[in-house]
């Protein structure tokens, strides 16, 4: 789902008919059907049909994905439930290598005949494409794992929670915000369950069960006198968790200028704070443009990491596969080969991790049957690796894929997608307050806002949700109209302080878009609160009459 579709969906009066118009969303189903699963033995039978049919037509490698993709949305505004939708998308995708070329086909008719036909079509497409081939596909070796399974370690399956409980929660959140002075609130609960089965000619049959959840809201406060308005979005994160994410516990809260959440989220408390802060933003001082030291909260920094570290280290971008759409990367292979490209300051250690518990990207195996792990991308400020899949591993001289392959649906072809890319916490004991104490002229930014970056990931501009001026080591008061602009390498080299592991938190996105036709993927980015020195801050206010 593209961002615009998301805005459309979160807008006014969304109907299920509109939802079904969004590709990849699947078709609406009754809530109870979300608890059904498909028998593993049946999936193995279907997979074998495709594997055998492709092999018979001359495929040298085949993988099959059988996916059941479930979504549930609860959408409300103020005192009204606008929509409750359950969707399901179920089918099979088969990918082959034949005559050195990739081919792909998919079907939602899961009888033997249709499956075999899809496999044969994939081989035919591969053979057709092979005439326009410049170099044959070179797959990194991958051993078969036999019949294995992986389940996300959730405590409470969100699809088991009665709809009424979810509706009551959101309407309660809305009521708190309205009581606190909000003029409008839109609140949402998105739940995802991917039931994925993978089989390949390497001898793997992998059954996986993946869960994600995202509670969020947008509060609007209007100043009647001037007609100006301010918004405050939720400080929640989308997580690779079950409904337990919404069972807040005191130990998961970080108290400061506002309550921050770690691993569990108190939506009611955040709505109360949000309503109050939206009002404060109306009266806040408009920022003076200039250079400031920035203290960035993980609820904000995740997006900067995503755009400026996650994307430029995707190997397919580096190689030019995304040149017509998402773009290429400034982190060219020569920079990696030199082993000394100074990406950031010595404090900057960035790790790719496909196994992090609670993260959106955590899986046991990727969508081409590679067991997932973690690896360094930036080590002590230097570029040391990228994010690669099986047909790219040889370019980096890697003995195996790094497990970054993903497709957003059974009907989409899998390709390189971002792993969880996270900034490691500081090694010295340091709190948020310790970081703020050292700043003479700075801004503390919480929550993600406007974001934009060029197609090679040099120049970016980010906004946030909450901005606080720091003067002589102390929070001086709220600011508004803030956005910072920088250049990736300059920015990460200005990193001078990172709070310790006790402050480490995840942020993330449900809807990272890439590819043509566009696919989405969900990915998390962890960090502790971090300080960057001397960053350009602009004032974004204008007047149109």
């Amino acid at each position, binding site marked *: 789902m593209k961002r*615009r579709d998301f805005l459309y969906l979160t*807008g*006014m*009066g969304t*109907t*299920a*008919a509109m939802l*079904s*118009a969004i590709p990849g969303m699947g*078709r609406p*189903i*009754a809530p109870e059907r979300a608890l059904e699963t498909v028998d593993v033995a049946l999936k193995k039978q279907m997979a074998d049909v495709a594997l055998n049919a492709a092999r018979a037509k001359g495929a040298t490698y085949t993988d099959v994905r059988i996916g059941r993709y479930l979504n549930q949305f609860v959408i409300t505004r103020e005192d*009204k*439930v*606008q929509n409750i939708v359950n969707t399901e998308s179920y089918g099979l995708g088969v990918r082959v290598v034949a005559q050195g070329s*990739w081919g792909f*086909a998919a079907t939602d008719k899961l009888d033997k005949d249709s499956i075999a036909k899809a496999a044969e079509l994939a081989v035919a*497409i591969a053979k*057709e*494409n092979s005439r*326009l*081939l*410049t170099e044959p596909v070179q797959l990194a070796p991958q051993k078969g794992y036999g019949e294995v399974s992986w389940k996300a370690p959730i405590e409470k399956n969100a699809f088991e929670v009665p709809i009424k409980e979810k*509706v009551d929660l959101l309407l309660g959140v809305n009521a708190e915000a309205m009581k606190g002075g909000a*003029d*409008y609130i839109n609140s949402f609960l998105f739940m995802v369950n991917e039931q994925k089965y993978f089989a390949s000619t390497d001898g793997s049959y992998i059954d996986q069960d993946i869960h994600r959840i995202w509670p969020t809201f947008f509060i*609007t406060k*209007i100043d*009647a*006198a*001037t*007609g100006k*308005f301010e*918004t405050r979005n939720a400080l929640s994160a989308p997580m690779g968790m079950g409904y337990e994410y919404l069972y807040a516990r005191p130990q998961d809260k970080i108290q400061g200028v506002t309550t921050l959440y770690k691993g569990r989220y108190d939506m009611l408390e955040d709505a109360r704070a949000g309503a109050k802060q939206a009002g404060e933003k109306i009266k806040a001082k408009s920022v003076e443009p200039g250079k400031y030291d920035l203290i960035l909260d993980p609820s904000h920094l995740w997006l900067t990491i995503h755009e400026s570290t996650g994307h430029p280290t995707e190997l397919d971008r580096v190689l*030019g*596969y*995304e*040149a*017509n*759409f998402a*773009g*290429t990367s*400034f982190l*060219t292979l020569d920079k990696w080969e030199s082993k000394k490209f100074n990406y950031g300051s010595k404090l900057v250690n960035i790790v790719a991790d496909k196994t992090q518990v609670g993260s959106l990207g955590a899986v046991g195996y990727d969508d081409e049957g590679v067991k997932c792990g973690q690896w360094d991308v930036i080590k002590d400020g230097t570029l040391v690796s990228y994010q690669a899949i099986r047909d790219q591993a040889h370019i980096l001289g890697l003995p195996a894929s790094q497990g970054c392959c993903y497709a957003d649906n059974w009907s989409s*072809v899998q390709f390189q997608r971002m792993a969880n890319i996270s900034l490691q916490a500081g090694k010295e004991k340091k709190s948020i307050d310790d970081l703020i104490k050292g700043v003479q002229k700075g801004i503390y930014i919480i929550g993600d806002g*406007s974001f*934009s970056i*060029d*197609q*090679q990931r040099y*120049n970016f501009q980010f906004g946030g949700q909450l901005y606080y001026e720091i003067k002589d080591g102390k929070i001086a008061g709220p600011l508004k109209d803030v956005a910072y*602009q920088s250049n990736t390498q300059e920015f990460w080299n200005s990193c001078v302080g990172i709070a310790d592991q006790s402050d480490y938190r995840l942020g993330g996105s449900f809807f990272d878009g890439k590819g*043509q*036709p566009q696919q989405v993927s969900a990915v998390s980015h962890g960090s502790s609160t971090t300080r960057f020195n001397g960053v*350009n801050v*602009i004032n*974004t*206010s204008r*007047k*149109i009459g």
Partner: protein
Amino acid sequence: MPLLTQDEAQALLKKVLSYSKADECEINLTGTITGNIRYARNSVSTSGGISTNTLVVSSAYGKKLGVATINEFDDASLEKVVRRAEELAQLAPENPEFVSFLGPQKYAEPVMFVPATAAITPKQRADAVAQSLQVAKDTKTVAAGFMEDTTTMNAMMNSKGLFAYNTSTGVNFSITMRTEDGKGSGYATRGYNDFTKLDTKKASQIAADKGLKSATARAIEPGKYTVILEPAAAAVLLENIFFGLDARQADEGRSFLSQPGGKTRLGEKLVDERVNMYSDPLNPELPTSTWAGDGRPQEKVSWIEKGVIKNLTYSRYWAEKKGVKAIPGPDGVIMEGGTKSLEELIKGTKKGILVTRLWYIRPVDPQTLLLTGLTRDGTFYIENGEIKFPIKNFRFNESPVIMLNNLEELGKVERTVSVESNVNYLIPPMKIRDFTFSSLSDAV
């Protein structure tokens, strides 16, 4: 399965409706056949074809609505989907904003379907790409491109007697040509209902030319410049106005069209008086559907006339509440232009910047519609009516509302595709003064 004819669709929908026991029932039927081919590094990377059919049943008891869908069309499945929608409706909380379905409507005959596009073969797709790859070979550039064609059938029927049907075709093509050393990059995009109008060779030549000419770009100082925006660049800014025409947002005070005291800018002059924007489903260059997804007729609507906001879009609920006509949002927008070609606009420019494409457009302030983003794939400095040299890309911070107040001149209208939303528009190239570039980017 091939797309249903009008008679077949009508018969199927009648059958589904006959199963309904709810107070009201509405059925939407969509069938889509798409084909795509993607290439990069001068080689095809993926291609595929997908055919899907979906039936959506909405059943209502009073103000309680339930929705269910299915993609199997045997009698048992059809009855099952109706029962499921009814069960869901009975379980649903009452929605005070539910509006009863529309009765029969009159629609103009749509003109979106071109048989040549519906008949595209995989070979035609590969040939179109082969032509583009040949340009890359001839110019020693590296091509990355994407072509997607779609044939769609939409039909709807409800228990109030409404029936609507249409078919459409479309093809979108985009191409990026980079120099082998990665120092230059050029782009072109095309969108048509008629595949035979698509000339992938010509578009690829334009992209290659821009790519070669944009190599070794110079840095010039960010600041306020006169710019000439090609239609593809203008589209991604202007569509933020089109997407923001919702009356409810404006009435609620949270849109750039809001004014203090619950008032809106409807009827007020917002931009230069040479700005005229409208939608027309029957425009031969940009035909769109003659009815919206909820059955409302799509008619010719003026959105901005002589710089004045003439109409806003309404949901049926909000229109009923406000006692006005419920105008649905348009599927495509047309902006009137002038008579000059892009070359003539350049010729008449003393000092300025030619922008091919804008990228990563994001809202910064919804109140003023301030947007940020960057130039990409061919940005050039103009002096005394000539393109002097390629320049490095810029980040901009600008509002399309302010931009249309700074209008100098409009060129000839052409059809273009938004790289952000994939929506097609008819938009002229435009010359704008004081366009705010706020910083430089090293990206090529």
